[in-house]
């Protein structure tokens, strides 16, 4: 698709107000900027078998979602608007609880195909987590669909930068992978969290720092928000695809069969706050359905989401979130 200079500038100007949210870095620009968009697959769309979902089905959902997110008529154009062929892309997974509640391989494969359609070579894609052990426990071998798969811990010396980075009150060191890649795709799993209330997109970046244990005070608030306000995340994160094929509605973040539910959905968006807010509503609804008390009554309402709004990271008002169901 050709974009004229005038149209390009117009798009650029319309894009600026959304600059605090995730920005596109591809050859084109994402068109749709009117408000925060969350794309949600209808619950029950993805049946989880053998701890995995069907890659073809996910790919179809992602293609539709990318078109909605970017307003391009073809998914390839949509992917290209977000990623440039020369980009080194890191796909951050969520693998702590092992296979039953980790990022599904089917979703990761579908994302890799999407990136391929943007012209990104396999050797420029890195699927990563905190450790090799976590990846392997979640069913990701060290070579997966031709792309590199490894944990931060595979680097000598622990895998974290020696530079202290600040965003808010607690200092940290980021995984070297965060510096190595040009763009990030976050594939978290939607689940209850014993401290923060829920774990969705923003919480997953605790797996990118060397001292997550120092970010857990006060129900992780404002620490989750402050971490995600760091420029390295804000600049590099391009897309979030949240695995809600199986969610955990209580007693997270570890897998607890009693409180897990085959929800069969996937969420997609570029505004982490809107995604976390949407994920929270899902968890609350399913908790109510299961006869569990609300997260507020449980003393762990995810207040970090409001803190993230205050830091300008995104939108949590239902009236301002365009929730599109596919």
């Amino acid at each position, binding site marked *: 698709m050709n974009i004229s200079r005038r149209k390009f500038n117009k798009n650029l100007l319309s894009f600026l107000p959304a600059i605090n949210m995730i920005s596109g870095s591809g050859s084109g620009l994402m068109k749709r900027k009117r408000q925060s968009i969350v794309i949600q697959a209808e619950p029950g769309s993805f049946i989880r078998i053998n701890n995995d979902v069907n890659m073809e089905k996910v790919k179809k959902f992602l293609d539709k979602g990318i078109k909605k997110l970017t307003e391009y008529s073809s998914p390839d154009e949509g992917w290209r608007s977000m990623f440039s062929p020369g980009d080194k892309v890191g796909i951050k997974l969520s693998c*702590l*609880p092992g296979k039953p509640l980790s990022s599904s391989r089917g979703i990761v494969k579908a994302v890799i195909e999407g990136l391929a359609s943007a012209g990104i070579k396999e050797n420029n894609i890195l699927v990563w987590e905190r*450790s090799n052990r976590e990846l392997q426990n979640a069913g990701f071998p060290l070579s997966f669909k031709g792309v590199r798969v490894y944990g931060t*811990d595979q680097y000598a*010396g*622990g*895998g*974290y930068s*020696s530079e*202290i980075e*600040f965003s808010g009150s*607690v*200092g940290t060191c980021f995984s070297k992978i965060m510096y190595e890649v040009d763009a990030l795709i976050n594939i978290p799993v939607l689940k209850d*969290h*014993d*401290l923060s209330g829920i774990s969705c997109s923003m919480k997953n970046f605790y797996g990118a720092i*060397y*001292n997550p*244990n*120092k970010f*857990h*005070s006060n129900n992780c608030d404002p620490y989750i928000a402050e971490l995600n306000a760091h420029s390295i995340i804000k600049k590099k994160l391009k897309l979030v695809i949240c695995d809600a094929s199986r969610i955990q509605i209580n*007693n*997270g*973040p*570890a897998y*607890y069969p009693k409180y897990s539910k085959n929800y069969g959905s996937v969420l997609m968006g570029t505004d982490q706050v809107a995604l976390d807010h949407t994920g929270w509503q899902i968890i609350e609804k399913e908790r109510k359905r299961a006869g569990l008390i609300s997260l507020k009554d449980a003393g762990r309402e995810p207040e970090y989401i409001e803190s993230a709004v205050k830091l300008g990271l995104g939108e949590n008002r239902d009236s301002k979130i365009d929730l599109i169901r596919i």
Partner: protein
Amino acid sequence: MKRDRRNFIKLLMQAGVASPSFMLMSPSLSGNVQSVPVEAKYYEKLGEKKIKCNLCPHECRVADLERGTCGVRENRGGKYFTLVHSNPCAVNVDPIEKKPVFHYLPGTKSFSIATAGCNFVCKFCQNWEISQKRPEQVKSFTLSPAGVNMLAKKRGCRTVAHTYSEPVIFFEYMLDCAIEGKRRGIPNVMISNGFIQEKPMRELCKYLGAVKIDLKAFTEKFYKEFCSGSLRPVLDTLLVLKDEGIWFEIVDLIIPTLNDSDTEIKKMSKWIVKELGSDVPLHFSRYYPTFMLKNIPPTPPETVLKARKIALDSGVRFAYVGNMISDAENTYCPSCNKLLIERVGFHSSIKGMKKNKCKYCGEKIPGRFN
């Protein structure tokens, strides 16, 4: 006392100050080894695989697969484990003066160990590269409690020091080392922030030889803003140490504008004298910019000396300065003011003592000097 340049450098070299402490690389130590997790001693099960840690005042509630704020204790299926037992990442031979401990076997070497992790986040931590990391992020070794004490003896160390990071978080390892040390006649020394609950501290006191506590300031505000901790539990620990009758010393790192006011130092000194007694040595150390606190210049030596004077005027009988060269590192008899122990850097030599008394006036000097 005057020192010429040659004599000063000679003393420094004797003390090992001119070069960093060496890391022991004995064949009996193997690098990059993660030890087998050992069940933690102080925690309670809360049901549904959750636990509450009762080791330090943070009292972390930890869900399955998560870790406490220390980063070295993990909930695995409802059981809480320490990941650092027998897994030190730092193993050195230091003069005991480096801790600093001045009244406990001065002039001797201390076999010094640490694991990764800490229950504080002191923005001025000198050892943040191990204290703020998780065990899997540092190079570590397998070294059993028996091995620690055996190596200490082999290296001519009179004591084992649990130091550098925060020994509270490797409690079970320290305890086992101390039990083993007591059996072998090698007292173990705890160099700590004192942020520990009463029960584990009292258990440790049965086996430790001495304790040094960092009293980082005398305000809750400082502890909250610069350490992610709180003051009251540290004071409570000091009271427990007094009650247990174990030898202990206190260190206060003086940081310009943050904890260096005359009022605060006076208040701290008065509290120490009233609650702990005038015989507890109080060290004032000079701060240097590091870690997350780099925008404040090093403490002027005169500020540290002034703090010492305030302490002495408040009734503390043994007040010292540290991280700087000064005669105020020496021990003087509180009765006749004669020089008893001379110190330069980490080197000390006993000048005026006979057993544990001043050889000039017979004043008893508290501590263990034989």
